[in-house]
């Protein structure tokens, strides 16, 4: 019975494409007096519940010089326990709940997520509330954890793609905190053991209800969830800190940089442009996203030429900005032979120019719209995936409402919108090109 209802909701909502509604699940959204927000999404996927706790703090919030990587460090510190739930007890409870628990950090958010059987919801919510309100760690525990963070830096450092990303951001930005990656600069990570006091300050600033949204999805009753959250999270005190994140001045000309990778690897070329901040009211976010697929996706002329026919590249990918502040639109190509670097660069820039001058055919645009909607709906095939998707949007606008607004904009896109976005953002004066080549042996 419930399953039938689900199908009806799912299909009916999906087919109402003209309305722009794409998020198929009903949800409730409540604000507690302390500023904490709760989003509850009931699904009919049985037994399992996912709790995603989104803190709207990421590497973007790291405003002080020499203090990069602290949002990510907190992702680690949050597992260091409280007086009531020391790490052993915390782990014991998670373990008994058969829970899969983890956390991740990006430029705009830190998210803590746990997936488990529904009967453990009261226990998990209470335990999570306690660590957000009462996290307590010793200097020794702090120093030990910084070792694990350096270990994470080390395992990433085997990949030249991580280094390239670091240099692209560092070259493209002057003042905004998107200049550094979420991992932070190596010298700052190495200095972390000496920054115990700063870490306490960071926690005091950002681990506050007004920065936090709890997303609960799965086999749950929204009323019961609200009661549980109110009980265990209602006493958390709000803060008053507002980060003064420096605005990035307008870039005045093209920039370039190069990375010499110490081991043999295939050359990589990154071509980045200053893009817009996320918007669910202007069309530029969705226009650039669609452009990235049309111009550089697996079905694009360029991909088919360079990857499939001429076989100059083994991968071609893009990252279209979906960030709180203006962020980079990036095209990245891995090149099979170093001597093709210049050719590939010219081909990418020619494609960019083409999208600034020509209008994309309507049928191609419609195919992308269809793809966007189907891939979005198909990604929501379990409670954890729903919470994970919603958490990305909550980091931006603190509500799943923004998803339907965004997809309504996708529906309205015209070829002129795509060309306008290319003309506005994919310009030489806002461009950064970084190449990476490996050692010959």
């Amino acid at each position: 019975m419930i399953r039938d209802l689900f199908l009806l909701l799912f299909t009916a909502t999906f087919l109402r494409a003209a309305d722009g509604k794409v998020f198929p699940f009903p949800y409730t959204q409540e604000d507690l007096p302390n500023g904490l927000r709760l989003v509850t999404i009931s699904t009919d996927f049985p037994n399992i519940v996912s709790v995603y706790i989104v803190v709207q703090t990421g590497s973007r919030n790291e405003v002080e010089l020499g203090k990069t990587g602290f949002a990510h460090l907190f992702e680690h510190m949050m597992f260091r326990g409280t007086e009531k739930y020391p790490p052993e007890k915390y782990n014991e409870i998670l373990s008994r709940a058969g829970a899969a628990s983890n956390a991740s950090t990006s430029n705009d958010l830190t998210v803590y997520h746990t997936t488990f059987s529904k009967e453990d919801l009261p226990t998990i919510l209470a335990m999570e509330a306690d660590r957000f309100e009462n996290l307590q760690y010793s200097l020794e525990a702090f120093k030990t954890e910084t070792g694990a963070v350096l270990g994470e830096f080390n395992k990433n450092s085997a990949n030249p793609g991580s280094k390239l990303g670091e240099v692209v951001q560092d070259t493209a930005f002057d003042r905004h905190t998107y200049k550094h990656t979420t991992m932070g600069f190596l010298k700052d990570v190495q200095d972390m053991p000496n920054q115990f006091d700063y870490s306490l300050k960071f926690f005091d600033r950002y681990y506050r209800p007004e920065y936090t949204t709890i997303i609960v999805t799965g086999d749950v009753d929204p009323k019961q969830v609200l009661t549980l959250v109110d009980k265990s999270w209602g006493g958390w005190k709000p803060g008053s800190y507002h980060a003064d994140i420096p605005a990035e001045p307008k870039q005045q000309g093209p920039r370039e940089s190069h990375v010499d990778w110490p081991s043999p690897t295939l050359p990589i070329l990154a071509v980045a442009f200053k893009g817009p901040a996320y918007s669910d009211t202007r069309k530029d976010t969705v226009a650039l996203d669609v452009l990235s697929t049309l111009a550089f996706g697996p079905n694009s002329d360029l991909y088919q030429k360079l990857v499939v026919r001429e076989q100059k590249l083994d991968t071609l990918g893009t990252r279209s900005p979906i960030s709180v502040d203006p962020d980079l639109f990036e095209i990245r190509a891995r090149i099979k032979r170093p001597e093709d670097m210049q050719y590939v660069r010219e081909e990418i820039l020619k494609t960019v120019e083409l999208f600034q001058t020509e209008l994309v055919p309507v049928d191609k645009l419609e195919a992308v719209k269809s793809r966007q909607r189907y891939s979005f709906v198909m990604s929501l095939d379990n409670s954890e995936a729903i919470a994970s998707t919603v958490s990305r949007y909550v980091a931006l606008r603190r509500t799943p409402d923004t998803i339907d607004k965004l997809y309504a904009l996708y529906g309205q896109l015209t070829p002129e919108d795509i060309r306008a976005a290319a003309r506005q953002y994919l310009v030489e004066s806002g461009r950064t090109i970084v190449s990476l080549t490996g050692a010959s042996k």
Partner: protein
Amino acid sequence: MIGIRNFAALLVATLIGVPAYSQIRTVTLPSKSPIVTIRLVFTTGSFVDPDDKPGVANLTAAMLAQGGTRDLTYRQVTEAMFPIASTVDREVDNEMTTFSGSTHIDNLEAFYKLFRSMLLEPGWREDDFKRLKDNTINNIRVGLRGNNDEELGKEVLYSQLYRGTAYGHYSAGAISYIEKITTDDLKRFYQRHYTQSNLIVGIAGGYPPEFLDRMRKDFTVLAARDNDPAPAIKPPSIDHTRALIVEKNTRSVAYSFGFPIDVKRGDPDYPALLLMQSYFGPHRMGTGRLFQRIREVRGINYGDYAYIEYFPRGGNLMEPPPNVARRSQIFQIWIRPAEPPQAAFALRLAVYELDTLVKDGISQADFDRTKEFLTKYVNVLTKTKRAELGYAIDSLYYGIPDYNSYIKNAVAKVTREQVNATIRKHLRADRLQIVAVSANAEGLKKQLTGSGPSFIQYNSFKPADVLAEDKIVERFDIGLHPDDIEITAVDKVFQ
């Protein structure tokens, strides 16, 4: 509800002459979901690669999933898949070759027609072949050897442990051999191994009732004959601990080590051993003993885990991928990269922990907690239809009931004494194969031999019990002598 419809039919097919397509096994998970998931698993893979051409199984599957069909070029296939946001993914392991994809019910017909043509009417074009061959070589040279020290260490461990057997090569092959493979090799492999009797058709979601029969009928164009008997996989025994250091220019030291075990899913000792793994080193969880002692207490690296089944791409995945079932498995410990000054100590500590586990077993409190964990965690493992379907196919392969019931029932009955006896029976801290990926191999070699010492220094105060344990670990003899350590340059690996 899981339907394993003609497992029995398969057994009687040759006796009573039922239609040929009865050789195709099916696993179904019908529901009302608008998303339909199809998984086609051929119980064949790199273990039947020709001896002189390792990599044929992998390239054959690549040509089906990422080449064109007889009537459509690869570009036309991607164009047709594009608006429906579907793809056909493939994975080739030793014993299983999987083609999978999901689609919205609106697009089932369009998707299935493409899927069917890709598998049954491959295009075998030379330009696709060249592209996919290049990709495979680059994945080994750059993706694995260049960029992923941890996965490299794991795969080298397997190739060391299974040397001389059909599992002895990396499932994607080795570069100099891949270069010699031709499309004729692939066609021969396809004809011989893509048979009805090797095929398991899995489908989940709200597909129409007649759809399954249509699929089964379509796939009867595959050869209908019995498969060649699979050669037994007998890994050579290890008489003493040995190590291989893969030398490359890298910041830190990654380890994998272990030995073959005579236990696989469905065997009487499997549930007890799985409980051990869930206690000792559950994948990417902070609750495991190894993680606690190496990372949480000492801050040496990013994580430390243990496995009793093959688990590729552990650095990217949170749960094990289904359909990499094997007839022979290993026990292994994965130590994530450690800073060079702490690397020798990290290995001694992991072997010391293994030694302690074998000697002391699991305490009653840890046993009770882990039992509860495992009983519930199986729900998380099968939280998606995709995973549920994959697990159901593996259950058919191993001849066990659906995985959740199998684990829950077995774990409910298992006792602490049984778990500890199983640990003593199958695990050991000697006769290990160790693989390290590291710069300065000679330096590491010196630190790993004999009884050390391999000192550790911390940047913070540590409690007396940890420091006392460190004194033991620093001189803990892992049984390595200089002659037991081999060094190889990274560009020789899978070459």
